[in-house]
Each structure stands twice: as C-alpha cells, then as structure tokens.
C-alpha cells in the first residue's frame, strides 16, 4: 500500500538486466567519455566496486546515481568516505556505466535517480562498500607489517599500527589490498561516531560549473559528429503523414532528412543551428489521429465526471463516513484542481548516439542509466551487451529524464540511419514544451464534517484524474489502482497522511487523458498537499479554531510531523503580529519519508500584487548527510513549487500543448524569491528524502496566507488566473 515505486525501472526491464547479467555474457567496453568520468573497470587499484585508490593517494569513489543538481554525488561520496576513513580532500568521483553494471552482475545496484532516493535508497550498501575497503586496506598494511589487523586503525587515508606508531598511506597498500578477499561482514559506525556525515562540506562538482568547463549532453563534441534537430507530431499519438525533404536538402550544412519512427522528422546537418533552420523550413503534414479535437475544456469536463460519482479506487479508509454523519454539525465542501505542467529542465532533452552493426553507444543526461541503456538497445536493434550509455551531468532532471528515454531512442534511430557517424540530437525549447511527460492533471472534491465542538469527524477526499503508473508502468498497478496517486494521503509509509480523522475515505476516480503524464519533482504530493492543507485551513475557519490548533488536535499520532509544524510556527512567530499588511499561512506534510512544514508570510497590495516576504521551512529527514545541501534543496524546492503555483500550466488546444516557451510558461525569478529560513531538524533513526518533499508545502503555505491577506480562496492553480483584489 505504501510502497511508491522507484522511477524509471520497470519490473520487466530489471528482470531483463538481471537475466542478462546472470547469463554471464561478456562484452567489450569502448570507453571514450570526454569528461572527467574516466573508465570504471576493475583496475589494479580498485579495492572494490565503490573505491579506487591510486598510488598518489587519490581516492576515486564510484557513484551509481545521477547528479542533476541535487548534490547526490557529494552526499554519496561522504557516505563512502565516512566508513573508508579517507582524506576528504583527496576524493574524486566517477560514474560506472550501465553496461558495466550489467557485466558485473549489477554490483552497483540501482542506477535510478528519482523519488528522492539517492541517499536513502543506497546509504546502507555504499557505507558498507566504504567499510569493506577500509578493512581490506588495514589488512594489507597489517600483513606487510606482520601484525594483527586489530592493532591497526585508519584515519584520513593513513593506517597506523597503534602499538608501534608505524604509519602507511592508503595509496601505498592499495594494490595489495585490491588482491585481498573482501570481509564477510562489516560493522558500520554508529551515528554518534560520524565525522563527515552531517558536515556541511562543499560540493565536489562546483569548480567546472563556474568556468564553462563542465560538459553537459548538449556540449558534447565527438570527432566527425553531426547535429540533429527534431519535430514530433504535436498531437500526442499522431504520426508523420507527408514531408518534402527536397525543399531543404540544399540548405547550408544539411546532410540528411530522416523520419524517426513514424512520429517525428529530423534534419541532420553540420551544425545544430543549420539543422534547426532547415527543420523549420521542412514541409511536414501530420496524421493527427483520434485526439486532434481534445482541449483543456474537454479534459476538464472528463475529470468532472470522475468527481461526480461512479467507481473509484480506495487509497485510504478508516471508520465509517455514514455512521460519522450522525455527529456532524457542520459540513464544508470544496473542489480544487491542478493543471498539467512541464518539467522545463534548463537543458533541453538531448542525446548523442553512434551506431554500427556491431555496437551502439549513447552519451546523454539521464536519471536512470539502465533505463537509457534499455531504450538504446531497443532502438538500436542490438542486444544490450553490444550497447552502452555514458552518463553526463544533467542540466536539471526533475523526473523528466528518469522513466522516459524518448530522446535516447530518437537519437539512436537517427544515428542508425547514418551508420558510423556520431549524431547529437538536441531538442529546441519548443520541442521540449510540446513533447513533455507532464505533471498529471487532477481535481479533488473534499468534504469535511465538523462536530458541534469544531472537531473534524468526517473527511472524504475524492480525486479525479490521471494515473502516472497506468501510463508509464502499468505492471505496478494493483488491481488497477495507482497507489502513487494517493501520496500524502496514505495510511502509512513514506507518504502517510499527517492527520488522524475518525472517519476517512480517500478515493481516486482514474481519468486518463491522451496527454502523457510523468513523474514531476514531488509527483503527486504537489497537488495532494495543496488540496489537503488548504482544505484544513477552510475547516479550521469553519470550526472557528486557529489553523495551528486545529491541526494539532488531529496530529497526536503524528509526532514528527507535528514537531516540524510547531518548529516553523515558533520561528515564524505564529500567533504574534506579522507586521503591517503581512499575513501568515501554514502547511505540513510527510513525503518521501521526510516530515516537512512551512510558514509563509505574504502581503497583497491594493492592486492585487502578491509579495512572498519570508518562508520558514522545517525538514526532518531522519539523518542528514550534508546540511548545507539540504538547505539548498529546500530553498530550490520553493522556487520549483512557487513557480508551479504562480505560473505553471500547460493547456491543450486541438490535441496539442499551447505553451511553447518561457514567455508563455514563466518561472520564478530572483525578484520574486522570498527569504527562506531553513530549519534542519534530523530526529535520527530513519533516512528520508530531501530533493522533493518541501515542494509539497510551498504552495499551500502561501495560498493559506493569501486567503488571510485577501479573503480569496484560490482553489484552482495556477494563481495567474486569479485576481487577488477586486478591481
């Protein structure tokens, strides 16, 4: 019930990879990665899969998850280094390739980087990897000295024989350690012994981002490489009908006009600008298929049917609403809605592919290297052993590059039509906006029943709208139901509801549209927390009870969620005057295993202009690896969450997405950015995620404050459609 699938790897895919690896099919690895991530094969100085130590004491820590800005590269390295007892100043990192993972029996585990799982999903085995390497290094030194290993210890990349005071550096014994058998068992340090975990160390990947040296997928240049621009049928499910390649083949730089599967046209040219210029001039007609008349209005009506009644899946249920009705003295009902949104990573989708009859290689930004490998293999028509993927730093991911490797398949399909020549495919921003995997669209009707003392006795949440799993991973549906739809409203687990209500029913009437949904940073907590937290404020007002006190009464069984809520209320000064014209709003949630809360302070001027002055945000992720990176993620989550709240909407007309670029799909800018005070309050004993949870509380805290400032309840996002003051 409470298990939220990891993004991007389907069961069948994983089974395929494991089977392949178990069959022991070796393959040649052609490493030509033109960036800092050097080849990651079993070298002489590889202590184990996670740790390589060179004779000069340089420590290379292997990172399986993808860095997309969230700091996982640094955090995972801290976890390994903590147990390894190495000198942090000597640490560098590298990515193993998905092909190597297959060849080595998936020694690096899961490559999927989503669901705020980078740290919490791998902390145990990466720390054990560090600890095992330390034990092997100590044993190698002890054998050289002919002393018992138990008399030796390691710290800062130096092994000391404690009785004699003799020392040797890791680099001197690494080659000998690499030949030893790994220990059968290792004991991990207790949290009280941590020296690096919990420290606000600097990121390992900053310097090259300041000088232009960092190579992203769009920056890649291979010898002889050509460049491709692409346009797919703008109506989802449509196909190419006709095109007239002759009109553009003579344009400057054009090498080839290619059809990509049956859905898209691409132009390959010497430069991308030439390719894009020719593509814009290419006459194409589309067979738009059965969805060409779908509009935002028709989708809205379709979702309204789901709100009205009929069958629905149950996500959470306790008590009995009908029986509880006897106690209800006052009923509150409201309908909320949340639109389609594009991830809008700053770096558009892109991939570079080189195809021959023997081999296919891909260089790309991906949140899941193994899923990218599967996509490459399928598009290449070559077995996975003859393919590999070289991961590059992502210019943003936000879920777009995890479960969906449409851009990889396209690049391979193009490269396959020009064998032996590497081709870099880069989407234009317009293509990126038109071919998203959008935040699912939903509506919700919430009905609450208060008893005569203002206590919430009945709560009915009926959600109508898209299921991500039905579109992306139908195998993960349970008897047809999509449990992910209920994030933030579930009875238990990482996305449990933070309240105990005597009679509760949470339902989902699944209404899937032709617009493809995807995992979008925060996924379904984004709208579920708005629905729940804004409605809690509506209920509190109806009950005549302070919004914090109203929540407290329902949170006795949720002490960790209550603790973060109390923390933001205290620091923000809830219950005390906020300053002239400034009003506060609260929100709390449990998401991705962490407890988060926010208190926003806003004002709305006479013309209806909103200013978010200050947000106090608290996070309890159990354990914290790097508090300054937690702060960065919390601050960034407000940018993503408030951009969505203010502006984020993709509308549909004639079956296609209307908004084509940032002029129609704005994003928060620095002038709109509130001051954010981050309270990191790890209570220990569990590992929660950090990259996504705070998005849940960003919008509802601000919306609740807006209501107090203006008396306007905004229930339908985005805010740009609402006048906050009467003209």
């Amino acid at each position, binding site marked *: 019930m409470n298990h939220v699938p990891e993004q991007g790897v389907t069961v069948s895919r994983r089974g395929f990879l494991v089977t392949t690896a178990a069959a022991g099919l070796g393959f040649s690895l052609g490493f030509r990665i033109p960036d800092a991530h050097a080849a990651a094969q079993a070298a002489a100085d590889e202590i184990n899969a996670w740790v390589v130590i060179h004779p000069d004491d340089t420590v290379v820590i292997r990172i399986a998850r993808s860095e997309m800005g969230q700091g996982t590269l640094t955090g995972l390295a801290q976890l390994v280094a903590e147990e390894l007892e190495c000198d942090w100043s000597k640490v560098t990192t590298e990515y193993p390739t998905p092909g190597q993972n297959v060849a080595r029996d998936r020694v690096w585990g899961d490559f999927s980087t989503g669901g705020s799982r980078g740290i919490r999903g791998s902390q145990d085995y990466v720390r054990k990897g560090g600890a095992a390497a330390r034990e092997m290094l100590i044993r190698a030194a002890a054998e050289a000295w002919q002393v018992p290993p138990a008399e030796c210890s390691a710290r800062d990349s130096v092994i000391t024989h404690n009785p004699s005071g003799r020392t040797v550096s890791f680099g001197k014994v690494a080659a000998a350690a690499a030949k030893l058998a790994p220990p059968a068992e290792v004991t991990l340090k207790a949290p009280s012994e941590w020296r690096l975990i919990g420290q606000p160390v600097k990121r390992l990947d*900053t310097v090259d981002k*300041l000088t232009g040296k960092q190579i992203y997928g*769009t920056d890649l240049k291979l010898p002889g490489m050509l460049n491709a621009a692409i346009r797919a049928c703008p109506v989802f499910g449509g196909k190419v009908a006709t095109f007239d390649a002759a009109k553009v083949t003579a344009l400057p730089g054009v090498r080839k006009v290619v059809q990509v599967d049956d859905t898209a046209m691409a132009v390959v040219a010497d430069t991308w600008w030439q390719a894009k210029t020719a593509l814009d001039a290419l006459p194409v007609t589309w067979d738009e298929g059965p969805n060409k008349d779908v509009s935002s209005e028709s989708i809205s009506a379709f979702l309204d049917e789901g709100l009205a009644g009929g069958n629905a899946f149950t996500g959470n249920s306790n008590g009995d609403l009908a029986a509880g009705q006897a106690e209800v003295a006052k009923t509150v009902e409201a309908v909320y809605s949340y639109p389609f949104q594009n991830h809008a*990573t*700053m770096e558009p989708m892109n991939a570079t592919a080189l195809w021959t009859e023997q081999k296919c290689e891909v260089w790309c930004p991906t949140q899941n290297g193994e899923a990218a490998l599967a996509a490459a293999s399928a598009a290449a028509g070559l077995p996975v052993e003859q393919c590999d993927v070289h991961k590059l730093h992502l210019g943003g991911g936000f879920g777009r590059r995890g479960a969906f490797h449409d851009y990889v398949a396209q690049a391979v399909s193009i490269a396959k039509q020009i064998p032996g020549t590497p081709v870099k495919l880069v989407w234009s921003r317009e293509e990126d906006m038109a071919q998203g995997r959008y935040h699912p669209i939903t509506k919700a009707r919430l009905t609450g029943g208060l008893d005569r003392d203002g206590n919430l006795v009945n709560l009915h949440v009926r959600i109508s709208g898209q299921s991500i799993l039905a579109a992306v991973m139908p195998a993960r549906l349970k008897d047809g139901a999509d449990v992910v739809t209920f994030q933030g409203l579930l009875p238990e687990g990482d996305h449990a509801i933070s309240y105990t209500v005597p009679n509760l029913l949470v339902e989902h009437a699944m209404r899937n549209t032709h617009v493809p949904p995807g995992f979008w940073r925060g996924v379904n907590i984004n709208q579920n927390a708005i629905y729940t937290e804004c409605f809690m404020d509506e209920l509190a007002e109806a009950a005549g009870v302070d919004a914090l006190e109203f929540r407290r009464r329902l949170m006795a069984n949720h002490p960790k969620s209550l603790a973060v809520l109390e923390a933001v209320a205290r620091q923000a000064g809830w219950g005390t005057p906020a300053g002239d014209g400034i009003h506060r709003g609260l929100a709390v949630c449990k998401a991705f295993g962490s407890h988060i809360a926010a208190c926003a302070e806003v004002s709305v001027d006479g013309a209806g202009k909103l200013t978010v002055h200050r947000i106090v945000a608290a996070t309890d992720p159990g354990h914290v690896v790097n508090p300054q990176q937690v702060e960065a993620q919390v601050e960034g989550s407000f940018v993503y969450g408030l951009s969505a709240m203010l502006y984020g909407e993709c509308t549909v007309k004639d079956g296609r997405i209307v908004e084509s670029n940032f002029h129609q799909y704005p994003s928060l*800018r620095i002038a709109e950015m509130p001051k954010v005070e981050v309270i990191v309050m790890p209570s220990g004993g569990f590992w929660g995620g950090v990259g996504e949870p705070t998005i849940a509380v960003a919008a509802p805290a601000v919306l609740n404050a807006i209501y107090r400032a203006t008396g306007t309840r905004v229930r339908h996002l985005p805010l740009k459609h609402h006048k906050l003051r009467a003209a």
Partner: protein
Amino acid sequence: MARLNVNGKVVDVEVDPSTPLLWVLREQLGLTGTKYGCGIAQCGSCTVHVDGAAVRACVLPVSALDESKAIVTIEGLSPDGTHPVQQAWLELDVPQCGYCQAGMIMASAALLASNPRPSDADIDAGITNICRCGTFNRVRRGIHLAATKIA
C-alpha cells in the same frame, strides 16, 4: 563570414550572418560554456558580455557584430576562474545543476561592473535569468559577497 572579437582574440568564422552569436560561440568556436535554454532571450542561459554589457546571445545575429565589439564569454571572464563572482560562487556553493550558472555569473559580473555595490532592489532589477533548480538566494548572497571582493 563574420569577424568577431571573442575573449580578446579576433577570429574569422565561416557562417551565415543571420546565425545567432550563441551558436557561433558553441558550434564554430567550441565555447560551450555559454548555454542554449530558450532561444528567445527569456532565460538568460546564453548571457555574454558585449563591450561590457550583459547580452543574450541567442537572439543576437553575428551580422550585428564586428571586431570592434569586444565579446567576453564565461571562458574569458578570468584567466583562471578567479573573477570575484566566481570566487564568491565557489565559497557559497551556489550552483546546483549548473546549467544556467554561466549566464547567471556573466549577468552578475556585468551588474557589478556597472554598480559595484548593488542593493537587493538593484539585483532584483538587474538579474532576470531563470534557474529551475532555484539557486536565487545563494545568487543574491554571492553578488553581495563578490561586491566585497571588488571593493
């Protein structure tokens, strides 16, 4: 054909004169630090300096330039990554994914060149780049910190 003055060097480039400077930098000159984000001067990822002013290179055709116009890209901002803005960014760990940061740094450096002690309001008005990761508060602190290094 275009003659450009990029990072202190005059270069001749075989290119259609309507080509935006961004693509000449990235594809003809190999200066890929300057990024493509939107192509319509909305996001600022392509920000470079032309005669010291922050300019969005994605909408500037090279026909509008000649060797008298000094273009500076992120690669030419400082010889060794030690411009005060770069130093401040390093101290505060400003970048997340980093894709927009070359543009953000170039916009910030241009702001500081014209206004060595910008107020928060000056920063609000002068920095209009989009960052989807959400580094804005560290960008703001970074500009203030860089100002102290310039002084």
